[in-house]
Structure formats: structure tokens, C-alpha cells
């Protein structure tokens, strides 16, 4: 009997041990899986690429030489309607085979008509547009690249594409597009606050330039101004917070549960850096709220090639994982090169808007709010500097906003000397001051109201952003002070 009792006891003990060991094994397996899951998170989720395909600016022409450019709620309706039309135009093989070239005169005539012009964030060809609209691209690598899309009420059965730098313009034939676009233009007209004129019409450049006829400047120039609120913002990461659980959660996203190999460092400026292993992977959470991640790939490693569409998907995955994507996020530019290991290296840059205006952040190396660098499907670098809207305010010391004309007058010396220093030597000697200014005006490519975030400041200052040739400026809206000048 005793023997039987001993057997029963052994049996029970072995059974309990079996359960404990199985539990332990399951726990180990699930930890491994979680680690992998964190890494895979960005790949498994599918994003709608259309949402990050947005124009850099909307130029709306009301006919009669009056234009406006803004980013109101109305514009997103307009762009959504246009995206649907673009999809139907670019889906049809028949339409695509009928892409016809038009001359500059016709293009100018159309942009002066009641129309809407979308300035694209980067030069793209039709197959890149197809990718950004989420449709299967037609392979045509050498296709012409465009910087703007035009829809004119003078031709409701065609969409126009233009490249101002190369003065090449095309018309894509298709079905009659929706009346929603017309209605939107009407609504925008009734709410317009800043009036713009075409640079060419405003300054009569063709008459002033003595040399033989050059390409017309189709950019638009604001002749009025408006008061814009200042905006208080908060960075996404606060490294000075006493509770480091938020920082830890970013580190968990980057390194999974394997915290055993993670080292935490603090820089002199209080930025926190987490290093994995022997710095194969690092995460930096900056004092200015910047999140940066870098992962080393051993030299000689061959990674799988991916399409642009995949690259955008992976980038959006990381953006989503590290704080989510602001609704106004858009792809600003991308590039792809093949490195010495035969791997594709993609660089994708994104920007966002607060209160319908783009943000220029001081001190950002890339100049863009989000930058993703991929080697095939492997993330090599990721940086993100996004601020959240807190509230807006107005300062009574500024009774009115300056027009860009007033800003130009106040900063004429700087602009002129910058322009002259970029001219070739013999070119500069021959020109009078008036001639230089005619050229400066000819080379204005973009004027836009934006927000500027100075380093160590917690509010956005409204600015006029002005691009002249290869120089880009930001001037404070209320006193015209130059905040930034940059040469590409």
C-alpha cells in the first residue's frame, strides 16, 4: 500500500513539474514572439498611401488675373475630389496612350482661366503618381516628370500636367470630371483672404528683361496680407520629465523586451540615448523632442529589393509606431540610389501642417519633419520632429501683418547681396541694380505663409516663406525680420 502511495505522490509531483516547465517554455516563446512582433508591427499594418500624397500648395485662379493660395478645410475636399478624378484618368490605358503635349501659350491661357493648380511636393512622373494614388503603376522609367497638376473649367474633359522648369506641358484626355471641383472653387472664392497675382503679370517681367524672350514666371505673388495667430506647441517627447516611463516606452518599441542589452545614456544637453548591444542600434530622444533611430547593417549584407510603394508603407509603419502620423502628414520628397553592395537605398521625407500651414523647424538637418532612410526593407535611419498643437494666441503689439512687398523692401539689401553672390562673375559686373531686381523677381518660385519654430522656443511664429532661385527665406510676418536664409 505504501508503495502505491509513493507512486501516486511521484506521479502528482511529476505532473506539477511538467506543468511548470511547459509554462516556462510558453513564456519564453511568447517573449521571443513579442520581440519579433514589435519589429514586425510596422510591416504588418497596411496604410492608405493616398493620404500622404498631398500638394505642396493649392493655387486657385478665379479668372481675371486674381488668384489665391491657402490650405483650408475646403482644399482637402477639393484635393479628395481631384484624387478620385486622377485615379479614373490614370487607370485607363486608353487615356494614358493619348497623353498630348501642349505649348506654353496654351498652359498660360489655362492657368489664367478659372482653374485650380496643385503644386506637387516633388517632381513626379505619371507612374509615381499612380503609386501615390494606390493604383498599379505602368512601367515607364524615362517618363517626363511634372511639378504641377492643373484642372481648368475651360476644359472639363482633360487634366493638365506641367513642368515649369523644363517648360513642358501635357494634357491627359478623359471623362468629364465632377462638378464638385467647380463648387469648391466657388466656395473658396467667397472666403478668400489674401489676393495673389501672377508674378509675370504683376511685374511685367517680359518687357523689363532686355534679353530675348524667356520663359514666363507662372508663380503667384500675394498683394495683400492677413493676421495669423501664433501657436503654442508641445514636443512629443519630454526628456526632462521626472517620470521616464514615456521614454522607456519608446525604447521598448525600438528594442522589444530584450532590455538586458540596452544601455541608457544622457548627453550634456540632457538628451537621452539608448544603445543596443555594441551600438548596433541606437535611439536618441532629444531635448527638442526629436526622435532618432539608427540600425547598423553589416557591410556586404544583401537585402531584398522593394518598390516605392513598399518603401512608403514601411516608412508609414515606423511613423505610426513612433507616435503616430499627424493627419496633415504628406510625402515631401523621395530618392532611391543603388549602393556598392547592390542594395536599394531609399530616402523618404515627410512634412506636416499645423492650422493649415507648413512648419519650418530651425536646426533640422534634413529640413524635413520626418526622414526615413531604408536599405531595401531594412530601416537604417529614422528621425522625426513633430510638435503638437496646444493653443493659439495673438499679440496686440502687432496691429497688422506685413505684405510680402513690405518684407522685400525691408530686406532688400540682404536679398540683393545673396543674389549677386550667386551670379557668375562676368554676369554680375554688367548688371544695374534695376536689372538685378528684375531678375530677382523673375526667379521668385514660391511665396507662402508658414509657421517657423525657433530652437528652444515653444511657439510657432507666422512667417512669409519666399523662394528665389536656389535661395529660400523665412521672414517674420509682423516685423519682417529675417529668421532663416538657406541656399539649396
Amino acid at each position, binding site marked *: 500500500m505504501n508503495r502505491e502511495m509513493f507512486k501516486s505522490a511521484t506521479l502528482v509531483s511529476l505532473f506539477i513539474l511538467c506543468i511548470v516547465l511547459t509554462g516556462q517554455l510558453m513564456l519564453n516563446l511568447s517573449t521571443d514572439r513579442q520581440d519579433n512582433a514589435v519589429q514586425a508591427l510596422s510591416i504588418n499594418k497596411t496604410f492608405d498611401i493616398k493620404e500622404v500624397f498631398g500638394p505642396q500648395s493649392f493655387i486657385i485662379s478665379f479668372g481675371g488675373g486674381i488668384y489665391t493660395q491657402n490650405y483650408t478645410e475646403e482644399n482637402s475636399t477639393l484635393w479628395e475630389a481631384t484624387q478620385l478624378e486622377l485615379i479614373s484618368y490614370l487607370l485607363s490605358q486608353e487615356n494614358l496612350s493619348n497623353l498630348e503635349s501642349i505649348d506654353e501659350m496654351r498652359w498660360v491661357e489655362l492657368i489664367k482661366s478659372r482653374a485650380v493648380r496643385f503644386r506637387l511636393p516633388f517632381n513626379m512622373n505619371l507612374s509615381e503618381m499612380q503609386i501615390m494614388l494606390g493604383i498599379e503603376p505602368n512601367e515607364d522609367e524615362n517618363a517626363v516628370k511634372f511639378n504641377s497638376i492643373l484642372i481648368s473649367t475651360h476644359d472639363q474633359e482633360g487634366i493638365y500636367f506641367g513642368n515649369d522648369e523644363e517648360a513642358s506641358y501635357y494634357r491627359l484626355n478623359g471623362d468629364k470630371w465632377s462638378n464638385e471641383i467647380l463648387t469648391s472653387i466657388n466656395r473658396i472664392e467667397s472666403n478668400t483672404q489674401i489676393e495673389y497675382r501672377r508674378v509675370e503679370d504683376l511685374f511685367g517681367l517680359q518687357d523689363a528683361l532686355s534679353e530675348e524672350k524667356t520663359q514666363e514666371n507662372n508663380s503667384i505673388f500675394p498683394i495683400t496680407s492677413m493676421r495669423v495667430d501664433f501657436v503654442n506647441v508641445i514636443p512629443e517627447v519630454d526628456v526632462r520629465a521626472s517620470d521616464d516611463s514615456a521614454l522607456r516606452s519608446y525604447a521598448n518599441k525600438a528594442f522589444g523586451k530584450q532590455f538586458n542589452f540596452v544601455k541608457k545614456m544622457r548627453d550634456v544637453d540632457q538628451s537621452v540615448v539608448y544603445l543596443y548591444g*555594441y551600438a548596433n542600434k541606437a535611439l536618441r530622444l532629444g531635448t527638442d523632442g526629436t526622435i*532618432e533611430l539608427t540600425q547598423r547593417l553589416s557591410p556586404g549584407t544583401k537585402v531584398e529589393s522593394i518598390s516605392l510603394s513598399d518603401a512608403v508603407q514601411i516608412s508609414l509603419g515606423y511613423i505610426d509606431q513612433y507616435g503616430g502620423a499627424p493627419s496633415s502628414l504628406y510625402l515631401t520628397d523621395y530618392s532611391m540610389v543603388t549602393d556598392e553592395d547592390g542594395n536599394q537605398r531609399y530616402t523618404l521625407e515627410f512634412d506636416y501642417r499645423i492650422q493649415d500651414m507648413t512648419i519650418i523647424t530651425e536646426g533640422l538637418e534634413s529640413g524635413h519633419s520626418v526622414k526615413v532612410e531604408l536599405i531595401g526593407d531594412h530601416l537604417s535611419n529614422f528621425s522625426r520632429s513633430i510638435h503638437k498643437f496646444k493653443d493659439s494666441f495673438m499679440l496686440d503689439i502687432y496691429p497688422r501683418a506685413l505684405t510680402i512687398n513690405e518684407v522685400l523692401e525691408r530686406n532688400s539689401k540682404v536679398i540683393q547681396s545673396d543674389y549677386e553672390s550667386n551670379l557668375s562673375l562676368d554676369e554680375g559686373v554688367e548688371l544695374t541694380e534695376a536689372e538685378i531686381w528684375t531678375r530677382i523677381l523673375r526667379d521668385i518660385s514660391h511665396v507662402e505663409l508658414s509657421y517657423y519654430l525657433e530652437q528652444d522656443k515653444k511657439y510657432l511664429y507666422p512667417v512669409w516663406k519666399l523662394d528665389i532661385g536656389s535661395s529660400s527665406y523665412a521672414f517674420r510676418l509682423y516685423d519682417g525680420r529675417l529668421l532663416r536664409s538657406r541656399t539649396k
Partner: protein
Amino acid sequence: MDWSRTKTILIIALLLTNSVLFFVLYGDRIGARTDYENNQNQLTEVLKLLESEQVTVTTDVPTQDLVMTDIRLTYETYEDETMIQILLGENFTNIDGQYLSKDAGVRILETQELVYQLLNPLGGYVETDVDQATEIAKNFLDSVGLQYSSVAHWVTEQQDDGTVLVEFRQIEDGYFVENAYMKLIVSNTSVIELRRKWFGAIEVQDTSKIVESPAKALFRVLSEIDGNTDIQRPVEIESMDLGYRLISNILTINFQEGEPMPYWRFRTAQGDVIYIEAQTE
């Protein structure tokens, strides 16, 4: 039903299952223990291999416990001016962040590095005896109360201008701690410059790491020697130590505090230093 027989069968089945589970879960540790036992044999093999590659090891190969405690280091800063008082005496002025007494000055770079300089060194920069310089430097550190147990002499080198550089590094509990130094320049019979970047608080964490065995580290030295064109064979390894070193990456700029990683440090007779990552994944 024969319960007794059923129990016996179940006991055997559970014993087998538990053995498999145990092996899957802890098999690597059993292997590790065997590795540890085989270490001596491995070491002899590696030393033989190194010798055949013209690399000789003249130092004792350490037999420390191969587990290192995680630590957290914080650089000393000099806001409280105590160190400045020690170096300059009571009478000094602060002019634009530079502390000046009648014959010496102190600057603090990036809040972490202290630079002490004699304003008018007696006799200027002159040819100095290397052997005496180390003693002069040690005496200087003694006189200002900076010669404590964590200070270890690292190198003494004659400079192009005839003066001698004497460098001290930090050692804590027998482990080297890199990224900290005291560099003294001796001219004639006096210390004319001191640069000090030193870890103050060392916080011992409650976690530890298993360290790669000396045999494996020595084996990896070979590929480092191959990959470094500055190191010429034959190579004589005259010291091998275990310690901590802060790691950096393109995202790191200038640490104020951080957790270092374990490293093996090898020093050749020619003065080359090779670091081998000591933490096993």
C-alpha cells in the same frame, strides 16, 4: 483496471517529457558549464594558434570571475569650484568663465573637462627627463589630493617640444574604466598643464553580464590584428585587462552620464591598444 501498472507507465512518460522540457529550457546552460570546464584546453589551443601567427602573449591570462556587474557612470562637473580652489588657492577671479590666479588659470570645457595651465612656466617649454616626469606628475597629483586608488598610470611620452606627457586613467574595483583621464604636461621640474575628465559617481546596478571567456577574446584579437594595418607582426601582447568603456554611435554627441559596456583591452609591446567586445549576446 491495473492502477499500479498505469501509474508506472504514466511516471515513465512524465519523466521522459520533463527531461525533454528541461533540456529545451536549460540545455544551453548545461553546455555553458561544459564550456567553462573546457576553457583551459581551449586557451592552450588558442595560444598555440596565436603563436603560429606570430602573436605571443607574455602577460598572465586573467582568471577573473567572468561576470561583470552593470554600472552607471557620471562625469564630474566643477560647478562648486572646490577643485578650482585646490588648484589655484583661495585668491582667484572668474573672468568670462576662466578662473585666474596670479600664476595659473583654469577653464572648464563642456562642463566636464578641466584644463589647468601655468601662465608663465618657469624656463618655458624645455627638454624634460622622461623618467623623472612620471614622478613629478605623481607628486603633483599627491600635492593637490588627486592621487587616489582609482588613478592608474597609463603612459609617459616625450612631446615634440621636449616636454613630457604623463597620462593617468581610471580603475574601479580592478576594472579599467575608459573615457576618463588626467593628462599632465611636465616641463623641466614642474607640471605646466593638467587636463582632467573623470567619472565622479559610479552607481552599481543590481544586474550583471556574463563575459566572453579569455580564450575566445584572444581568438578574436587575431582578426583585429589582421584588420589593422598599423599593427606589424610579430606582435607581443603584454597586457590583457577587463573593464568598461562607453560606446558611441552617430546619434551620441557628448555623454554626461551613461552605462558602459564590458570590454577586453589588449596592449601590445609596441603600444597599440585593441579592444574586444566582452559581452556575449
